[in-house]
């Protein structure tokens, strides 16, 4: 009789960014039919995103699809995911970033299995900017993920809840926001925010497939290997899928007249580096001992 595992995601089940989770869940359920049955009960309406890692540790649910930023207080080093400049396959080399993060997650009672999304981040603004200097003083919507980077650029982060963002943008309460490629157009956020700074940062998404450690340890070695095999095969397919989606999204951007902005080469680099420096500085404050290892393992 297969062991039923309850799973929750931080986004609603039918959210476009969750498309590949369905694929992963189906594969595990089909290929490990006798051992595991993952029952994906829903998103934040079942357990709020911020509490999903705690619920996982407590074995209230057994699998979560959650961004590391949401449980970083448990282990600040997980914020290094976004900073990785390696491919997921490279990270999985023995003794590499994957192995390191598995160990770190074990310390908080969680098994890190894999990643379910690929989509780089961009900042968008509602007026043309020519230099980095122009970014100073622009009010940006944040939900606390990029405010360190924004502050470094001299921008002003304003906390606006997800549900109020559309109104805030439309009414000029904020003049821009940061987000991945997919999503903002569907939510109408681009209606008044037609300039995208075409310098992708944090290209490695930090949304992971995580399992309760005891539950994982309770599985047969064979089943563990099977799940891992499925995931290793899944990750590049997932990346290819989203790359194709993103390409189509950019076509739609052109259709609705989204303007791409870049600066001089020197400024582009300064912008890109600022994104990473802001996070490294924060990590140096919270886990100074780990930073050298993390830098080495993430290709920084």
């Amino acid at each position, binding site marked *: 009789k297969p062991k039923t595992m309850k799973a929750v995601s931080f986004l609603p089940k039918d959210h476009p960014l969750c498309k590949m989770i369905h694929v992963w869940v189906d594969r595990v359920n089909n290929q490990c039919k006798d051992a595991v049955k993952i029952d994906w009960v829903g998103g934040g309406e079942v357990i709020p995103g*911020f509490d999903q890692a705690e619920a996982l540790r407590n074995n209230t649910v057994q699998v979560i699809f959650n961004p590391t*930023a*949401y*449980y*970083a*207080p*448990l282990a600040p080093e997980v914020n290094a995911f976004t900073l990785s400049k390696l491919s997921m396959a490279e990270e999985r080399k023995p003794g590499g970033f994957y192995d390191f993060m598995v160990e770190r997650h074990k310390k908080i009672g969680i098994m890190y299995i894999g990643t379910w999304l690929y989509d780089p981040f961009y900042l968008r603004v509602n007026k043309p900017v020519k230099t980095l200097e122009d970014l100073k*003083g622009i*009010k940006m919507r*944040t*939900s*606390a993920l990029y*405010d360190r980077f924004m502050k470094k650029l001299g921008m*002003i*982060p*304003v*906390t606006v*809840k997800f549900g109020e963002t559309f109104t805030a943008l439309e009414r000029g*309460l904020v003049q821009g926001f940061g987000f991945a490629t997919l999503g903002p157009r569907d939510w109408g956020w681009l209606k008044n925010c037609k300039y995208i700074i075409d310098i992708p940062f944090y290209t490695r998404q930090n949304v992971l497939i995580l399992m309760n450690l005891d539950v994982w340890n309770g599985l047969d070695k064979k089943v563990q290997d099977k799940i891992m095999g499925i995931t290793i095969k899944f990750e590049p397919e997932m990346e290819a899928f989203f790359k194709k989606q993103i390409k189509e999204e950019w076509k739609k951007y052109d259709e609705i007249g989204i303007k791409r902005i870049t600066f001089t080469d020197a400024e582009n680099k300064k912008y890109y580096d600022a994104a990473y420096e802001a996070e490294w500085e924060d990590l140096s404050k919270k886990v100074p001992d780990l930073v050298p290892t993390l830098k080495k393992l993430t290709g920084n």
Partner: protein
Amino acid sequence: MKKLLESFDRIMNIMMFLAGIILIFIMLSVGLEVVLRTFFNRPQIWVTEITEVMLLYITFLGSAWLLREGGHVKVDIILNHLKPKTIAFLGIISSIIGIFVSITLTIFGFSVTLDYLHRGIYTPTAMEIPVSAIIVVIPIGSLMLFFQFIRRTGKFIVGFFIESGKLKP
């Protein structure tokens, strides 16, 4: 005993006073944030997060006080048609349920608070507020509720015996 009850009442009044201060604080800080953001280009990141937490504080600081004042809404449509003795009896039952709820929230509230404190967990937001400082108000408020529910049980027991004629009013 009387002194104990008096100081207990005083604590509830103080908690309620704090809740009032918090209400005013919320109004002022949110208003100030709009002004600073609109006219001075200086949004205050802390306002949203702090005022959210304050809502939880208001609720649990005021809950025991509200129970004393009989302000927790209940569906008394059937209750109003019953004999005083039955009402007193149901009052005992409902107070015991209240005791069960509040003691559960107290115990698990404290255990969650201590756990967060011990692990040093903070909110994954810009402010990085210690979660224990937020959650601690739940067990504190629940403990006060627990005492108030005990008092309420006692009141209904006395009422029940008076109505059964076993006790003189």
